[in-house]
């Protein structure tokens, strides 16, 4: 339905395809920030935002956003101007660009390119660049340390992410996320289970666990939030940022969380396929199921944040290089063997 209207007006198509993920991200970010504070409150048996805007402080994030707009935008004297200003926008652009290949529902996908996963992983690696840029540009020792830490962390955690994504590609056989999702429709595993990849192959469960740990590190969430660790480096690479520039970092962080959770949902939990097979299928329901799975993973990330302490930098590297990477490659081989034997 959307395809027909868009094809004959190219300018409009670009705007619409750009606007849909943007609105999803903005609405999600506002709700997620408010949600995180409520979840934190619930875990710590306190109330969280209550007074702002009526029932349970639903307008809290809007108040924060409006206030951040009014904040003075401090540019440190001897920070390198252009890089300092550009870093937050590059960070948001990186995770926003990757939304193009995410199949939101059976009838809507930004661009149905057949190297979807490859493009997504390539674009998200730009995040590392922007964090280092922010760390170095703000000419502050704490942010420099934060930037260097994030350089080491995000680059090394891309390897297990790619390895686990590879295991799914081995099973699915195609890089296009839409086809990956289509392959997971219907539910005839053991009669009632939806044939999502995570049920098709036992080793994919191990792959999902490794994948989840590495996306925690990719979006530097606790226990891997070393680049902006509150208690050690004042505020990590964000120390010198204020007002809307800092808000852009927050937006980029939440967008990155959503992006990687949606990727996890597509690869392991059958994207927009409903768990009851044809019962609640269709494009509209598909979007609902897809966002539900993504937000569930985001909820688990938030849940972990308020329960676990933080790792140290060298322990972080140790986990990545000597546990996750070998495990993910062995898992890759095992998944391939399983595929050869059983299908």
């Amino acid at each position, binding site marked *: 339905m959307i395809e027909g209207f868009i094809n004959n007006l190219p300018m409009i198509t670009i705007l619409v395809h750009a606007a849909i993920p943007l609105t999803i991200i903005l609405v999600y970010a506002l709700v997620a920030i408010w949600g995180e504070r409520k979840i934190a409150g619930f875990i710590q048996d306190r109330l969280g935002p209550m007074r702002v805007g009526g029932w349970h402080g639903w307008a809290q994030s809007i108040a924060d956003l409006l206030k951040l707009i009014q904040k003075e935008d401090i540019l440190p004297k001897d920070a390198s101007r252009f890089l300092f200003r550009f870093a937050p926008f590059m960070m948001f652009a990186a995770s926003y660009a990757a939304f193009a290949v995410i199949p939101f529902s059976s009838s809507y996908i930004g661009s149905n390119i057949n190297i979807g996963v490859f493009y997504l992983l390539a674009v998200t690696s730009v995040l590392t660049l922007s964090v280092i840029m922010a760390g170095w540009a703000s000419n502050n020792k*704490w942010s420099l340390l934060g930037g260097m830490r994030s350089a080491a962390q995000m680059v090394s955690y891309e390897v297990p992410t790619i390895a686990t994504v590879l295991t799914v590609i081995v099973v699915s056989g195609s890089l296009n996320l839409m086809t990956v999702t289509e392959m997971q429709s219907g539910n005839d595993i053991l009669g009632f289970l939806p044939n999502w990849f995570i049920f098709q192959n036992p080793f994919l469960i191990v792959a999902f666990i490794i994948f989840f740990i590495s996306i925690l590190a990719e979006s530097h969430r606790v226990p891997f939030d070393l680049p902006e660790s509150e*208690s050690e*480096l004042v505020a990590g690479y964000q120390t010198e940022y204020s007002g809307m520039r800092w808000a852009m970092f927050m937006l980029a962080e939440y967008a990155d969380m959503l992006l990687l959770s949606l990727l996890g949902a597509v690869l392991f939990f059958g994207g927009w396929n409903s768990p009851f097979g044809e019962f609640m299928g269709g494009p509209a329901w598909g979007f609902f199921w897809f966002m539900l799975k993504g937000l569930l993973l985001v909820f688990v990330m938030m849940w972990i944040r308020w*329960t676990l302490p*933080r790792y140290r*930098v060298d*322990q972080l590297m140790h986990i990545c290089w000597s546990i996750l990477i070998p495990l993910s490659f062995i898992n890759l081989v095992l998944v391939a063997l399983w595929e050869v034997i059983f299908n």
Partner: protein
Amino acid sequence: MVEILDNIDQREMVINMGPQHPSTHGVLRLELVLDGEIIKKVTPNIGYLHRCFEKYAEQMDDYSKVIPYTDRMDYVSAINQEHGYVLAMERLLEIDVPERVEYIRVIMAELQRIASHLLGIGAFGLDLGAFTPFLYCFTEREKILDIFERTTGARLLYNYMAVGGLMKDVHPEFKTDTADFLKTFRPKIKELNDLLSYNDIFIKRTANIGVLPKQVAINYGASGPVLRGSGVQWDLRKNDPYSIYEKFDFEIPVGMGEMGTLGDCWDRYIVRVREMEQSLRIIEQALDGLPEEGDVTEAVPKRIRPKNGSIYTRSESPRGELGYYIESNNSASPYRVKARAPSFVHLGMLPAISKGSLIADLVAIVGSIDIVLGEVDR
């Protein structure tokens, strides 16, 4: 150490973990000389909270007017500060205190020890990034503050003890409140252990870090949980009993190096957790033995004018050995009051323990020696 090629220009970075930093427990400035993230040298700069306690003690025209100022030295364990000062004065003037006062003082001191340890443990977890245990500890601490508030009227700084007795008697439901607290608090320690003490990331962040050998600890004059964390069986309540502590039986938890080497951050932490359990035992026994009758203000002298002489008395505050050196010269105002603060001594040890560790470890070490800046700077 990894060897570095000589032609690479490597300069050390000097950074100020300054008076405003989320995890310096107040206004402490640590000058760090860093090579990458490895700390070459730490020089603590203190004095940002020097509030002239000793000068004030000399200007007061009555010995009992110094007590509100002892509260404000270590504001996290105010009762223990008062208890130390009051003990020193009673030994100087040779006043013996009625039984009921001694029991109430011990109960209040042990409750304050639990509250202080809860804050120390919560802040330590906060330094390592675990935000929720900090809030669980504070919820428990609020219950203790309720008990103090109903008895003394204040939440944090009480001015409750007087030389030779107490300002006023305890609240009628004091015994039932404390008994309820004991019942509800015991399972909470187990919950804290599951959440933080035996959490694998927490152990990785604290085991084998900031190791303080036994001999160095004694030479540096360490005391309290820091000394016991290094395996020295030393607690003033047992080794040099004051007040009525010899009436109660309780053990002294000592670090055994379970998770790493003896005397690391984890040992100092777990000693504090186990000490809370021992304090519960003391409070139980003290509650049973609390005599019903007895006026708490009968032994309080009307006017204090000690002849000239001097005394040094030590008591076990939650942070360590708190000593008061009082010199009197036959007048109503003290000639010299010197407070020996345990945090001041433990902070002096920081450069020795934290050489060659990372910034994240330094934060853990500062958290594990549990300093309060009001006491360091006096």
